């Protein structure tokens, strides 16, 4: 009658709970290390691992920014959330000026989606850069960073993105709208 069913129940239930616990342990052990570093030592400390990166306004808003210029490669802008953000649909735009209201400037160029949890890299077009975090869903600006102003405040012109055409200025990336740099953590906006 139901002896086989009962026998199956006796091993299936504990097995599924064991799988759940094992999965939890595995997932805990494999969490992104960059994020763990950020939670322990702050976003700026996590960005220290980026050799040669110039950091901007590390305590600004909810993100830290850094500009990385790998030798022989195009500059990359890094965004690192200070803490997990409940904003799953943030997109990163680069514009030349900051609009006075919450609207998206006409010249805004999409760099890619911002991860609410992990450091994310974007290829940065040359020129004066205002970085915007914008939610299309809410039609609202979430945050903005004026890289030029930040560089001026720090008095570290060498750390600012070079103006277009300047000696040593990086060439424009072929695809300004490309999302993340190769190897960068992928967005996990749906978490």
């Amino acid at each position, binding site marked *: 009658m139901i002896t086989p069913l009962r026998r199956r129940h006796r091993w299936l*239930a*504990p097995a599924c*709970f064991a799988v759940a616990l094992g*999965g*939890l342990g595995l997932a805990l052990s*494999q969490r992104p290390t960059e994020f763990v570093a950020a939670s322990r030592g702050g976003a700026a400390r996590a960005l220290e691992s980026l050799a040669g990166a110039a950091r901007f306004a590390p305590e600004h808003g909810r993100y830290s920014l850094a500009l990385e210029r790998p030798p022989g490669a195009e500059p990359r802008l890094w965004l690192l959330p200070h803490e997990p953000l*409940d904003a799953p649909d943030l997109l990163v735009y680069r514009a030349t000026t900051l609009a006075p209201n919450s609207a998206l400037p006409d010249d805004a160029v999409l760099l890619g989606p911002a991860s609410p949890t992990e450091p994310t890299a974007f290829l940065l077009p040359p020129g004066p850069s205002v970085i915007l975090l914008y939610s299309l869903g809410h039609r609202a600006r979430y945050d903005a960073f004026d890289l030029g102003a930040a560089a001026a405040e720090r008095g570290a012109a060498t750390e600012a993105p070079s103006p277009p055409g300047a000696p040593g200025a990086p060439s424009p990336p072929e695809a300004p709208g490309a999302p993340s740099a190769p190897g960068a953590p992928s967005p996990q906006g749906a978490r």
Partner: protein
Amino acid sequence: MGHAYQAVQWNRQKRRYDLALLGGVVLYLGAFVGVTSALQPEATAETLLIRGLGTAAFLLLHVVLAIGPLARLDRRWLPLLYNRRHLGVTMCALALLHGGFSLVQFHAFGDVNPLVSLLSSNTRFDSVADFPFQPLGAAALVILVLMAATSHDFWLANLTAPVWKALHMLVYVAYALIALHVALGVLQAETSPVLWGAVAAGALALGTLHLLAARKDAADDTRATPAAAPGPWIDACAVSEIREGRAKVIVAGGERVAIFRHGGRLSALSGVCQHQNGPLGEGRVVDGLVVCPWHGYQYRPQCGSSPAPFHERVPTFRLQVEAGRVLLDPRPVPLGTELAPVATEEAAP
């Protein structure tokens, strides 16, 4: 039990149970949204709703899965078991809302079919941290919906109890999928150990409860297994071991048989209710009928048939009493066969 199906056979107890359940869900969602919006003011309303519904469903699933072993370990939990299906359907509704809102929020505004997007937007199966956790939740949701849709007695009767039970045993698979969905999803962004600890404690508690209940069942079965005897009759127990109106459960041929004492006579029935395979041997004889403790299904002890107009039947077994011992033939007689109850006292020679 019923010969004509109704959506829900409401009674006072069910109404109170469902009102308490609904009130609890509303209170929980209100508290979750209030506390989370205070702690994380940047969280949007839809995010709060998705998370509130998801956590409510996950919590309810824990309650649903805990009731079974708790009722096996202590009969005082039986009243919760009586309407466990209502908990399950409520949990499924919450999970469905969570899944639906998530599908809209994260997949509905692109140029790809949301379901296609759900299954194809993340293909990083080689990464633990970036594993596509949403399809795991979707797979669990399919199981939960299937269970909720077949939870009615109509399906139980038409699928038969063993098939229905096997189908509903998939709830453990759903639980594992949901735990992985949570661990690979929201917990990847969680630095506080509180949530991790709570999810792990939940899985550990449920696993422990089920192991304890399984151990008790196995011990009960071992105790209830009579020594092997030559011939068809096995020595089940002493007559004095069976209380009036109750049963002594023994294991014969690997199956549970309940020997009931009613009006000074003995009858042997399967210890497994035809309805949800409940523990009929733990039931009582009320008004001359054996009543299952889980959902009140009734059987006539003489033939194992439910009283008209109902038509459930459980196997019955032949008994003898000799020298104060109850002897049982472990081969069931054909379903519905009338067997005269055996007197507890041997007839005088």
